[in-house]
């Protein structure tokens, strides 16, 4: 008990602010029906969860490497598009799986190149330009292979109906996946070999570049060949069984496809993050302004690429079957019934709430919060991250490769944003501008929480999410003000403005945010 009292006394400003906010949200009960209040809180929690997925990655990246990743909103949006594709176009996913596996198999020859190069001592003579030439050649060969490989989605005419509702129609059985492209065997084999060779050449270029500065020759065992070899086999098998696999995935139903979509989008996001950090951000660590320009630019470019690939349309992403049923036993009375009957809605204290939007998203947000918190507190890499936030140079001086940790954290942060995107898909819809409001909300949540604090990101997201939804609700029912006869109805532009106002107030009271460290 004394512990809690002490904690409160020590963090007086925090406690008072938090108490005032809680009172404010409870005061809202006065002006609206209890059922309205509950649904608003639940929606707020759901919005908070999505905001948190963006803000937490943002905060990890900013905390450890001082990079303000302004492309984070775009990466959230890309996650949604990747998820949509994996969800409603499993044929595209499987088409891409083969070249992807072959390219990675080629890249995995890197340790072999390393060993060979240091034995032959060619690296020293290779000079500065040759590695880059080989790298460029590798990418060229990769592109050569990719355009020849039959990928159904490359063909724009496949949607005889609009892509907007394609997912919904596929879900209802009103449409089929487009017929797979056919290609003669010689072309496919050529394409596969080029993609593999592209990966191998890229690996060679990178190995040559790295070998120029290396002292000791790395040892390599023949076991290093197993993984690339098995990847090649998997890639070829996926090609051979493409039709059967596609049919199987479609038949597996939306719940399983949604699981696949979540995994694919998160992993692809993480891979994109790792690639971004290791190629573009890394050279700019000492130059914050250039970093800002770079991430801002990447955000714009990413959005244009998405528009070019998917078109400027808002696409619907049907909810997975587990949260979509309307028939017998729905709306459910208990959570258990909702799961058994796969209900879309559930009756709760006199109001009807949606299982996907208001429950599932929030639950995933809480799970991510716990998992990342455990990762930070209980694992060695988490320990390194916490130490690195304070003093990177000292961590490096202990013999720890901080750059690798940077790449990991960037991948984690972008992966979380992509996860947020794919989760938001079924509730918000998928559109190219969905990332912008999330980026702003995430930034505000971070500023409220104290920039580099992980619990702060959670608390900030919570406040932003709740406030947004309350303003939305007041826009519908109006708020009685002590002056003026008409109830005041906030217009939609006031939603983001209100969160900004909250941020300004909190930063005036606590310049370092709720959980920030005094500098």
């Amino acid at each position, binding site marked *: 008990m004394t512990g809690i009292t002490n904690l409160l006394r020590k963090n007086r400003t925090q406690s008072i602010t938090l108490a005032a906010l809680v009172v404010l949200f409870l005061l809202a009960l006065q002006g609206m029906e209890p059922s309205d209040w509950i649904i608003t809180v639940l929606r707020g929690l759901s919005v908070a969860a999505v905001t948190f997925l963006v803000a937490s990655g943002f905060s990890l990246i900013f905390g450890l490497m001082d990079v303000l990743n302004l492309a984070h909103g775009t990466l959230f949006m890309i996650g949604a598009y990747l998820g949509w594709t994996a969800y409603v176009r499993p044929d595209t996913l499987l088409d891409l799986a083969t070249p992807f596996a072959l390219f990675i198999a080629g890249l995995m020859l890197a340790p072999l190149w390393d060993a060979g190069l240091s034995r032959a001592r060619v690296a020293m003579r290779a000079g500065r330009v040759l590695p880059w030439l080989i790298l460029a050649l590798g990418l060229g060969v990769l592109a050569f292979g990719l355009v020849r490989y039959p990928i159904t989605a490359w063909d724009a005419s496949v949607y005889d109906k609009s892509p907007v509702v394609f997912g919904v129609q596929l879900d209802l059985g009103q449409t089929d996946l487009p017929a797979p492209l056919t290609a003669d065997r010689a072309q496919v084999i050529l394409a596969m070999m080029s993609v593999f060779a592209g990966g191998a050449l890229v690996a060679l270029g990178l190995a040559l570049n790295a070998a120029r500065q290396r002292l000791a020759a790395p040892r390599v065992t023949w076991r290093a060949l197993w993984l690339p070899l098995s990847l090649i086999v998997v890639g070829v098998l996926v090609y051979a069984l493409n039709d059967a696999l596609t049919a199987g995935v479609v038949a597996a139903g939306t719940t399983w496809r949604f699981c696949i979509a979540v995994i694919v989008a998160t992993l692809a996001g993480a891979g994109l993050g790792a690639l971004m950090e290791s190629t573009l951000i890394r050279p700019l660590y000492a130059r914050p302004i250039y970093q800002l320009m770079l991430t801002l630019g990447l955000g714009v470019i990413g959005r244009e690429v998405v528009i070019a690939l998917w078109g400027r349309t808002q696409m619907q992403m049907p909810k997975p079957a587990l949260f979509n049923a309307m028939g017998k036993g729905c709306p459910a009375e208990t959570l258990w019934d909702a799961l058994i009957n796969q209900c879309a809605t559930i009756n709760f204290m006199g109001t009807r709430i949606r299982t996907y939007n208001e429950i599932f998203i929030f639950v995933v947000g809480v799970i991510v919060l716990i998992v990342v918190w455990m990762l930070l507190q209980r694992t*060695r890499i988490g320990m390194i991250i916490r130490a690195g936030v304070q003093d990177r140079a000292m961590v490096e001086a202990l013999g720890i490769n901080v750059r690798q940790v940077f790449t990991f954290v960037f991948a984690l942060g972008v992966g979380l944003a992509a996860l947020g995107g794919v989760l938001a898909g079924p509730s918000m819809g998928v559109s190219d501008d969905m990332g912008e409001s999330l980026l702003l909300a995430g930034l505000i949540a971070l500023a409220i929480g104290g920039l580099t604090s992980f619990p702060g990101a959670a608390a900030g997201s919570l406040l932003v999410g709740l406030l947004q939804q309350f303003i939305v609700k007041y826009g519908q029912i109006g708020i009685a003000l002590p002056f003026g006869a008409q109830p005041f109805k906030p217009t939609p532009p006031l939603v983001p403005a209100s969160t900004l106002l909250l941020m300004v107030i909190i930063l005036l009271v606590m310049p370092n945010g709720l959980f920030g460290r005094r500098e």
Partner: protein
Amino acid sequence: MSNLLEVRDVHTFIGQFHILQGVTVTVPKGAITTLLGRNGAGKTTTLKTILGLTPPRTGQVIFDGREIQGQRTFEIAALGIGFVPDYRAIFRDLSVEENLRIAERKPGDLERKADLIFGLFPDLKRLIKLRGTQLSGGQQQMLAIARALVADNKLLLIDEPTEGLAPVLIEQMMQAILQLAAETTVLLVEQNFHVASQLAKHYVIIEEGRSVQSGVMADLLKDTATVRRYLGAA
């Protein structure tokens, strides 16, 4: 090979400032060598240059028979160099145990070195659950040295270990450094000439970014003119 570390005519720039303008330091194996000099002479930068935190533009750094200049800091440290910076760099958000655990290069390092570490600094055992922020200055200094002992380091770079400590603690810290120097080689930066002269066997004087004189501490103690000229102490 009796020299564990050789720094040969190193020039280091920080931004456009030419901080080290020809520093040569030889650290014989198994003894304490101290860098002497006034504030801002370049002693700390010399340590950072060895570790690659401020890489040298020209010159060589040879550790254990191999050139290490131009390597990345974590690779240099992993060769077996422990660093105790003057600002101690205790990780605030980590517990004392985690502050030690993070220095492990292979699992179980801390358990293996526990006797050595807690033998030198018995206080740390009592404080093991506290956070870095909750330690006093002296305790932080002990932890910073202990952290450098967790991995199997052949060389310890210790920067200003007695700065800001109470006289009682200075005595304790000196005892600890003497004890650990029995097992590893130490390159020490020490502002307090009285302390440095009692600890070190060899010395190098750095003046305005250049190493101007080096030798055996016993000889320097007789040469009061040099001491007064470069160090302002007698």
